């Protein structure tokens, strides 16, 4: 263990050279560059499963808040009526934040 670092760098550069040679022989370097390019965009399937839940979730929250406030102040259905459009807008806001321009993705 103790004397490994002494001969380590020598070994390692030799290994890197052999790895690079083997990679170019197998034609691995070109696909590696391509897949790095592909990684930039998010997976379309994962985006699709994200967006559906985003819209529904904020509507659920808005209805829950409206219902709770109505029960608290005995004012049914006014808080619910007020909060449902807010929830819909928040759902659109979520989708826009996830997909819209100006953000990193």
């Amino acid at each position, binding site marked *: 263990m103790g004397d490994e670092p002494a001969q380590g760098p020598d070994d390692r550069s030799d290994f890197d050279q052999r790895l690079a040679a083997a990679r170019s022989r197998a034609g691995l370097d070109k696909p590696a560059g391509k897949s790095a390019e592909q990684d930039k965009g998010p997976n379309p399937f994962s985006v699709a*499963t*994200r967006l559906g839940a985003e819209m529904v979730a904020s509507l659920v929250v808005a209805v829950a808040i409206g219902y709770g406030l109505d029960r608290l102040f005995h004012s049914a259905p006014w808080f619910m009526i007020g*909060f449902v459009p807010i929830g819909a807008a*928040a759902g659109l806001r979520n989708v826009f934040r996830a997909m819209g321009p100006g953000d990193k993705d």
Partner: protein
Amino acid sequence: MAQESGINALGQFQLTTGFGAFGKAIEFTNSNEMMLLAAVIVTSLFVVALRQRALVPGRMQGLAEISYEFVHNMVLDTIGEEGKRFFPFVFTLFAFILIGNILGLFPYFFAFTSHIAITGALALFVFALSTLVGFWYHGIGFLKFFSPPGVPGWLLPLLIPIEIVSFLSRPISLSVRLFANITAGHVMWEVFAGFMLMLVSGLGAVGVVAAIIPLGLNIALTALEFLVAFLQAYVFAILTCLYLHDAIHMH
């Protein structure tokens, strides 16, 4: 109809007790059993894989290094430099959900991520953590998160409730997405398998031939379920990173 013919697509999500009489006494469920198994698998995988510390990694060490680098890059890309201190949290979450999803795909195993109690608890923990991190970094100034920059003042009474509702919807969308995807996949499996039994018992020899169609669908579904198992763990982890990014950098 489904009940009469003995096919109950939701029966697979029923909790029973595991570990025999001892498990019954302390109400240790089959869901707990799978969670424990997932934790043991993740831990032992890394202990065994990283024992050798070879310069040229073998298969197990390669697996460990690839998953480490995958999550490490995700955390750095999404959160930035500060994200490094959240890496253990995100990695634990990702590995636990991924192994849980995959274990649930095996016959006779239980998919604990198909219960909203589990996904909800995980999502609420992420939500509480990201909120606390926001207040930790910005103090009371984190409340400015709810007023988007560059907006005229008269719009604020409308926009602030929208931003608050949008913020509160995070744990719900996070938990429902994971739970719904896993549950839907397992129910579809069982329904198609039930079709096969119904065809064979109802049509005899013709039914045996016709049952090839739902069998083929189930095989295709298996491939899809493996994709979904990975993808939902990935989406959960990357959204955790996004929420932490929002908490640290505000917008």
